Each structure stands twice: as C-alpha cells, then as structure tokens.
C-alpha cells in the first residue's frame, strides 16, 4: 500500500523537478545561475490561474487534446514499475498498452495541432508523426528483447527481473539496448539534439510548434504531460540501465530518486555539449536507434 502511495506521489510531484535539474545543469555549463529548481512548478501554477483563448475555427478536439494526452501519460505511469517495486497495475501484455498510450497521447496532440488549421502547426504535426513512426520500432524491439529475457509479457516482472548479474551474462545486448533507448528517450521528449524545447522559431522546431495555439490551463496540461512523459520514459530507461537493488523497500525508493536526478543531469550534459541536429539527420539517428535495439534483440534471440 505504501509503495503504491509513494509511486503515485512520485509520478505526480517529481516530473517538473527533472526539468528544473536539466535547466540548472545547462545553466552551470553556461556559467549562469539559472532558474530555480522549482521554476517549472511556479510556471504551472501561473498557467493554471490564467484564462484561455480558444480560436473560433477549432472543435472539441482542440480542447480535448491536452487532457487526453495528460491522462494517457498518467495511465502509462501507473503501468511502469519504478525502481524495484511492482507497478500498481500489471497484467500480461501491458507492455503493448504502455507503448500505445504514448501513441494515443501523440495522436491527440497532432490532431489538436491540425485542428487549428495553422500551416505551421500542421508542419510540426507532420514532423512529429514521421519521427514517431521511426522511434516506435526501436521501442518495440527493446520490449521484445526484455520480454524474451524475462519470459513474460508484463512490464512489472520484466523490469524487476533485470539485475546487475544479468549485465554480466548478456552485457553486449543490454548495452546496445540502452544505446537505442537513450536516443528514443531524447527524441520522444523533444530534447536536443533532436528538437530544442526552448526555441520559438517555427521553422526549426517540432513539438513546440504544435502547441502554439494552446494557452492557460490547457497549456499547463501540455507542459505537465510533457514533463511526466520525460519522467516515465526516464524511469523505463533507468530500470534497464542501472537495475540496482538493495533489498530494503525504502532504500530502493531513495536509490530510484537519486538515479532519476542523475539521469536529468546526464540529459542536461548532453544538451550542453551537443548542437541540434539538422532535420534531415534526425530520421537517420532514429533508424540507427532501431538498428541498435534490433541488433540487441538478435543477440538475445540467437
């Protein structure tokens, strides 16, 4: 019971903090003080209190989009085990639901963008859909590999089965897997080098351009949903990359939180030392991610 409570609390409270840590890391690299760790909580609180402007040309999809995306991400967060603890909801085959909840959220984000009728947003939606097509096989190859390793189709036993000893026996496959997954993590969450979350130049951005017309609480849901997606995919990555176990339930939660903060710092470092890729190079990187995780599947199936 306490585990479920901690799980829910972490999922609800922690995501904006990760963005804050990424921001602080980037600021430290640039020699600035940077915004506070809690800046994204303030931003969300401010947006929630604001009014909303809705274009006359839009339909209910425009208002439903952010809510559905946030809800889908929340459900996905409940399916994924955090650290060494089983997820609140687990059943055979939930890994497919996990992958497609993200697809559902993305579908409604792109649909809401198309609903505005703005050519810029349509362009962003087209890009997002293209990149998602290429990132999805990588994620599924990874899920098949993990499912083969653990012999189950459910995320909870799949993730808790991973351990440090597994890293010694099939290290090569796991290394390829996390290489591919890290690319997918950065691409799906619109981080540099795939997309610049801070840019506001319509021609170069992917995700930000789709949400230009949203304002007020709807925009807050989008930002919160994006942060939560980063949290969930980051937790998925951490579970595979560093399956550290102490045996003590409370200590495991502490380790998990520390690892997540470490991941945020790592993402901040990547964003600080890399330039944004040219748009034509992004599909190439995503195909490389597919090949990495497909290759790891090959090594496991052999």
């Amino acid at each position, binding site marked *: 019971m306490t585990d479920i409570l901690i799980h829910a609390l972490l999922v609800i409270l922690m995501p904006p903090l990760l963005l804050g840590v990424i921001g602080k890391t980037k600021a430290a690299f640039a020699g600035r003080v940077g915004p506070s760790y809690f800046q994204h909580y303030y931003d969300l609180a401010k947006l929630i209190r604001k009014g909303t402007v809705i274009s006359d040309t839009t339909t209910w999809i425009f208002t439903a989009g952010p809510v559905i995306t946030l809800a889908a991400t929340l459900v996905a967060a409940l399916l994924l085990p955090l650290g060494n603890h089983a997820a609140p909801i687990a059943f055979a085959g939930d890994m497919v639901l996990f992958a497609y909840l993200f697809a559902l959220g993305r579908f409604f984000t792109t649909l809401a963008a198309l609903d505005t009728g703005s050519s810029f947003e349509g362009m962003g939606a087209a890009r997002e859909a293209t990149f998602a097509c290429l990132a999805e096989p990588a994620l599924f190859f990874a899920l098949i590999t993990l499912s083969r390793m653990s012999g189950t189709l459910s995320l909870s036993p799949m993730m808790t089965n991973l351990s440090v000893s597994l890293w010694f026996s099939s290290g090569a496959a796991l290394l390829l897997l996390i290489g591919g997954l890290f690319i997918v993590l950065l691409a799906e969450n619109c981080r540099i080098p795939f997309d610049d979350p801070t840019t506001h130049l319509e021609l170069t951005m992917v995700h930000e351009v789709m949400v230009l017309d949203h304002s007020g609480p709807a925009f807050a849901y989008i930002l919160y949903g994006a942060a939560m997606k980063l949290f969930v995919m980051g937790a998925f990555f951490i579970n595979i990359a560093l399956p550290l176990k102490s045996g003590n339930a409370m200590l495991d939660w502490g380790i998990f939180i520390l690892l997540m903060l470490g991941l945020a710092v790592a993402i901040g470092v990547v964003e600080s030392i890399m330039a944004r890729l040219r748009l034509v190079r992004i599909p190439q990187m995503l195909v*490389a991610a597919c090949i990495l995780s497909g290759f790891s599947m090959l090594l496991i199936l052999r």
Partner: protein
Amino acid sequence: MDIFADQLLVFVMLINFVVLGSSRMTMAIRAVAVQGVVLGLLPGIIHHFSWHLVAITVGIILAKGVIIPWLLFRAMDRIQIKREVEPFIGYVSTLIIGAVTTALAFVFAAKLPLAPEHQGLLFVPASIATMMTGFLTLTTRRKAISQVIGYLILENGIFIFGLLLTTAMPVMVEAGALLDLLVGIFVMGIVINHISNEFSSIDTSRLTALKE
C-alpha cells in the same frame, strides 16, 4: 574469455554500421582503424600467450590501426576529398540493408555445420556480417577511396573467420597477408591519385565511359 571476445565482436559489427552510415571520409577511415585495432586484440584474447602471438598482435595493430589509416589520410589530403557526395544508394537505405544482411548472417551462421566448440560464439555471424558490409560499401559508393575502405572491411571479415580456423596462426602466413594488404592499399593510394589527376575526380562510375 569468450564472453569478452563476443563483446568485442559486437563492437566490430557496430563499427560496420558507423561506416555504412557516415558520409565523412575521416569518420569512416577512423572507424576502420578502430576496427583493425579491436581485431588485433582478438587473437590475444582467444589464444594462449606466446611470443609469436604478441608479434602478430603488434603487427596487426600497427598495420591496420596506424599505417593503413595514415596512407588513406594521405591519399585523402592529396586528392582533396572530404566526403562521399552521392552514393548509389542513400545512407539510411544502406544502413537498413546492412541491418538486414547482419540479421541474415545470424540466420545463416546458425544453419552452418560448425564444430561444437564454435557453435555458440559470435565469430561466424560477425565474420559474415562484416564481409557483407564490405561488399555493400564496395558496391554502393562512388569514390574510389570509399571503395578502398570497403575492401579493408571485407578483409577484416575474412580475418575474423581466419581466427576460428587455426588455433595458432603461422607467423609467416599472417605476415604475408598483412604485407599483401599494405601493398594493396599503397598501390590503391597511388592509383586513386592518378585517377584524380587524369579525370579531376575520383568518381569511379565515370571510368566506365570511354572518351578521348
């Protein structure tokens, strides 16, 4: 030790993909150099220590990791070519073909009647996959210097296969093969230089057309 060898072979296969996906010559040459060094380390891992093994390891690392890349870089400098402009098949497509051939190499290797002690190892699939990568690079790139890189990868694939066949390679055979390779690369460097002097381009697809 075999697990460690498998890890190195996975690394070798990843380098194949780097070569297939990169458009910059410098990147490809460096990748092949790293691949050569990794392959040089392999005999030392799978066989027991002996002085002639040390000689082979040092020879391979020197030839494949230092001298051949140096020759290639020199050729690259002389002809002023920085990148492959237009391969016959695009980079993403070659990457995917490379992935498919690697997968087929695994399938094929599983069907081969191998000696029982070689059955579970990665050597045979890695060797076939590397050879296929070499073929792909040789056939899909236009610039003569990329084709030399493809030839080198092809040779690396054959070398991996050779690791299996002999428990201890005779020094003379290995040295002979290395010498052949060195001379081959040296001659190709000169030939590339001549092609670029003669035709002011090293695009090999133009060599098929006759003209005054």
